[in-house]
Structure formats: C-alpha cells, structure tokens
C-alpha cells in the first residue's frame, strides 16, 4: 500500500479539496484526516460513524490544596510558567512533565490523565475514513495524528487497501511532522501569491528533511499568472516536480456546500484539472 499526503504550509490553499478529489477518484483506498485541529475532509464524504474513542494525549498536574504547604518548590522547577505566585496550576500552560510532582515535599501534586480529543472511524461514500477532533487548546496534536494514522492503517489491512489518502494540516510543526513520517509521497498544494511561495519554501524544507518524494500543484493559478510562473521557476530550481495547475472556479465552493468534490461535477473546470492531476500522480508512483 502506498500513502499520499497532502500538505501546503500555508492554510486554505485547497489541500482538502484535492484530497477529497483523490478520495472520489481512487479505488480501493482508505482515507485519513490528519488535520486534527480543523478536520474538514468528512464534510465532502457523508460519513456514517463506525467506532470512536477518547484520546488521552498527555497528563496534567493537579494539586491537593489540603496537602500544599505553599513552599514554592513546584513554581521554582516549572519551566512552562504554569504555576503562578499563589501556586495555582494553569492547565493551558501545564505540559504534564511531572517535575513539580517530583519536587513536592508533601506529595500534594499528582499527574492526572487528560482527555485531549476523540478519534473516530467512519464509513463514507468514498471508502473508510479515520479522523479525529482535538479539543480546544490541547497540545498533543502530533500524538493524535499518529493515532489517526494507526487507525487508518488498521482499516487498510481490513479491506486490503492499495492507497492511503492523508489530508494534512497547515504549518510546518508538530502535526505536520507527525503526518509526514512514513508517507510514500507528498503533494504540496500552493496558491500563486507571495505568501504561498514563502510558505511553500518552508514546507518543502520539512519534506526534503524527511526525504519524501514531493509533487507540486498550483491551485487558483489564474488569479495571478505571473506569480504562478515564479512558483514554477522556484519548483524547477529545487527539483520539485509540478503535476498540475487548477483554475479558479466558483463551482468548487458550490459543490462543497452540496457536500461534494469538484470532480463529481462534470462541468467544473477545476474538477477536470483535478482528474488530470490524479491520473498523472498515479502514473508517477506506479
């Protein structure tokens, strides 16, 4: 089985729209939405929930006021500024490292497991999906991404899938790195703007760092064709292979409102471009 991961650096460039197109076109596949902060792929798939569970990402320090003698040792060792002058623990700042637990002379602090989100699997009109939802402000998105990938791999074994289609998150940090490990290929989706190019350069750095073969798609290329040309020059210099351009097409959000991918609309110019990209990519990774 080969896995293809959609990344972009910059958000909102069309990762999920293209991943949704691949989901519709690909046969014998499993889908994973690893954008656990803002998972959207299911909105194109009409999912039916199969299984779900709590995700215990990390722990947090909890203090027993009755035992606390206000000695301040915990505050002294905490490197995350999570303990204030009155020795209250801020759950948003606490990283659950346990240093305070170790130094507390009266055993007033314990680490308690924290439910940071939920994972789920679903059957959809385009195949099985593994996805998740991270609760607001939680920090263990990398671990949840890894869990979603594990669930997807289990689903893939059950159906003997040949493709795993993974929708990634924006940025270059923790969840992106977690989604990139083990991917067979990455499709980078960018847009013709200075921001798009700037962010592409940084995400390409990450992908190169992990030595994953990468391909480039410029979405909404006709909104600024000079920038598109500039991006293509950049891609050439960096030996990043272009596998397609998608035109700006108002029918993309219209189909999204219907819960569909643009490739399910035979009239859509963007849908036609996505079909070409899919065909080219399939040839590439054979």
């Amino acid at each position, binding site marked *: 089985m080969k896995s293809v991961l959609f990344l972009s*650096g*910059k*958000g*909102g*460039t069309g990762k*999920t729209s293209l991943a949704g197109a691949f989901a519709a076109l690909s046969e014998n596949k499993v889908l994973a939405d690893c954008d656990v*902060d*803002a998972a*959207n792929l299911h*909105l194109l798939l009409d999912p039916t929930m199969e299984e779900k569970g709590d995700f215990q990402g*990390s722990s947090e320090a909890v203090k027993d006021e009755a035992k606390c003698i206000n000695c301040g040792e915990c505050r002294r*060792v905490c*490197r*995350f500024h999570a303990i204030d002058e009155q020795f209250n623990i801020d759950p*948003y700042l606490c*990283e*659950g*490292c*346990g*240093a305070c637990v*170790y*130094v507390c002379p009266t055993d007033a602090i314990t*680490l308690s497991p924290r439910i940071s989100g939920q994972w789920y699997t679903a059957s959809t009109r385009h195949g099985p999906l593994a996805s998740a939802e*991270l609760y*607001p*402000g*939680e*920090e263990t*998105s*990398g671990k949840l991404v890894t869990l979603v990938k594990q669930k997807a791999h289990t689903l893939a074994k059950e159906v003997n899938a040949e493709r795993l289609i993974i929708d990634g*998150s*924006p*940025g*270059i*940090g*923790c969840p*992106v*790195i*977690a989604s990139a490990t083990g991917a067979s290929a990455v499709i980078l989706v960018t*847009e013709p*703007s*200075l*921001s798009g190019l*700037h*962010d592409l350069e*940084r*995400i390409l*750095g*990450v992908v190169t*760092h992990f030595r994953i073969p990468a391909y480039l798609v410029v979405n*909404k290329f006709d*909104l*600024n064709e000079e*920038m598109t040309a500039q991006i293509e020059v950049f891609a050439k210099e960096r030996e990043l292979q272009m596998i397609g351009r998608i035109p700006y097409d*108002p029918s993309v*959000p*219209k189909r*999204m*409102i219907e*819960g569909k991918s643009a490739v399910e609309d035979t009239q859509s110019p963007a849908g036609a471009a996505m079909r070409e990209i899919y065909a080219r990519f399939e040839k590439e990774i054979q």
Partner: protein
Amino acid sequence: MRITIASGKGGTGKTTVATNLAIAVSDKFSVQFLDCDVEEPNAHIFLKPQIEHTRSVEKLLPEVDEELCTRCGECAKACEFNAIAIIGKKILVYNDLCHGCGLCKMVCPTGAISEHPHELGVIETGTAHGFLFSRGLLNVGEAMSTPIIHEMKEMIAPKHLTIIDAPPGTGCPTIAAIKDADVAILVTEPTPFGLHDLQAAVGVARSVEVPVFVVINRDGIGDDHVERYCEQEKIPVAMKIPFAREIAKLYSQGTSLVDALPEWKERFEALYRYVASSPARQGEADSDVAGERHTQGTTLRDTKGGAK
C-alpha cells in the same frame, strides 16, 4: 489593548485583516504588531518591516555522560514524553520529543545528565509603517512552536494597541496567541469548511473567555450559514470583505488593501472602533483603549454595524 486575529481554518485571511487593521489605525494609535503564526509567518510580506535585531528561542536538551551513567533507567522512567530510552548499553535522547522540562536531570542519581540549549527558532524585531513589529520564526524541521509564542507574548509593550496574528487551528499554539487578549477577531469564509472551523475557533476563544467578533472574507463565494450561525450564537459580524479578483491580486503581490485602495482605510478604522467599543467589552475601563496618540473628539461608541 490587545486584539488577536485568529481562525480555525487556515488561509481565510487572518494576515489580511491583521496587517490592514494595523496600518489603518497606526496614525492614531501606538501600534505593536506580533506575527505569532511562527510556522508560516506572512505579515512581513505586507508590512515590509526593517528588522533591527534577531534573537534565538531555545529549549534545553539533556546530554548524558556515558562514563557517569550507570544505565539505571531512572531518567527514562521519569520522562513523560518518552524522550529518553535505554536499549542495552545505549542511551538514546529523542530531541523532537523532549520538552526541555529538566526532570531527567533532577532524577539522575549520578549527575550524568547536563543540559544544553537547542535553538527552536528566532524572534525578529524592528519597525514597519512607523510601528513596532516582531515576528517569530520556527526553524524548519522543529516541531514545537508554542515556546516561541510564549516568548513573544512576554514582549507585549504597555500602552500600545497590540495586534497579534495567530496561527491557524485550535491547538496549543493558537490558544497561546488568543489567551489574555481583550478581543479575538475570527476570520472565516462563507463555506462549510469555513463554518466548521469557525465553530471550533469560537470554542477556543470561549474556553479562555475572550470576546469574539467575526470577519467574513471572500463574502459571496458560498452560502449564508456562517451568518446564521453568528446570529444564533450572538456573535457580531464586524466586517465582510467581498471576493473580488482585484483584492485577490493585491494580496498575491503582497500589497495591502489599505495602501492600494483608500476606502479600505476607513473600513478598517471602523472595524477597530466597532470591536473596541463593543458591548462585549463593556465594564472594562475606558482607559484600556490603550495607545491613543491624541485625545479623540468623539467617543468610541458603536455606530451600529459600523464596519459593514
């Protein structure tokens, strides 16, 4: 006053709103701009700052002295992040997993562990359009962006109108950027993806009790579900930016709307007045409208739907 511009979904126009707002009000207020989208910061493209200094943001990584280490395994047992493992005689430290908490050093009975700074990224500081500008930049290949955002928040200047460009999402980097703000402006687009992620972003802002306003960008491309949601949740829609090829083109070239199209200066000033004077913020001291360069003749009251 502190205004954070955030969104659940990426690419909805956070940076557009943050940079235009900063430029539009910078003749009336002492503005400080913090680009906290440290994974992919873009505000500099529009603000074109002069960077005056750069400093490093580090975390401390453990280093084990193989001679002093007895392979007792206490460090590996204590580490909550599985960042240290002992396999046979080998000691492995996984830099990406390490949070730099220092617990391994504390528990080591033979003093075999020392700590050394490791750079996560940098913070660049300078000026743009006559106001203070800083941006965080996570090094490529590093996973942890939150410590950079925390350090940037330490730089918040008193008596300034601080505008924070937040990272997308709902996780800890985003909450670090939203927490302690007086107001969060959530930028979204009128599509199912935009709505879904807006709901998550509202959850984030509410979890840290920050009043929220919504800006709908690319208005006209989708449907009215975002507005209906805002109405239901009593969240004021403070501004709508239409989808127009002209606007998209300006954005793509790194030109701010306020600089290119004068009418947008007024609209972003109105956006500021609207969020600064909103009932959601009533009860807070008026002097909190910090950083005013001169006493204004008019009070900052909401002129209904001011910015629309």
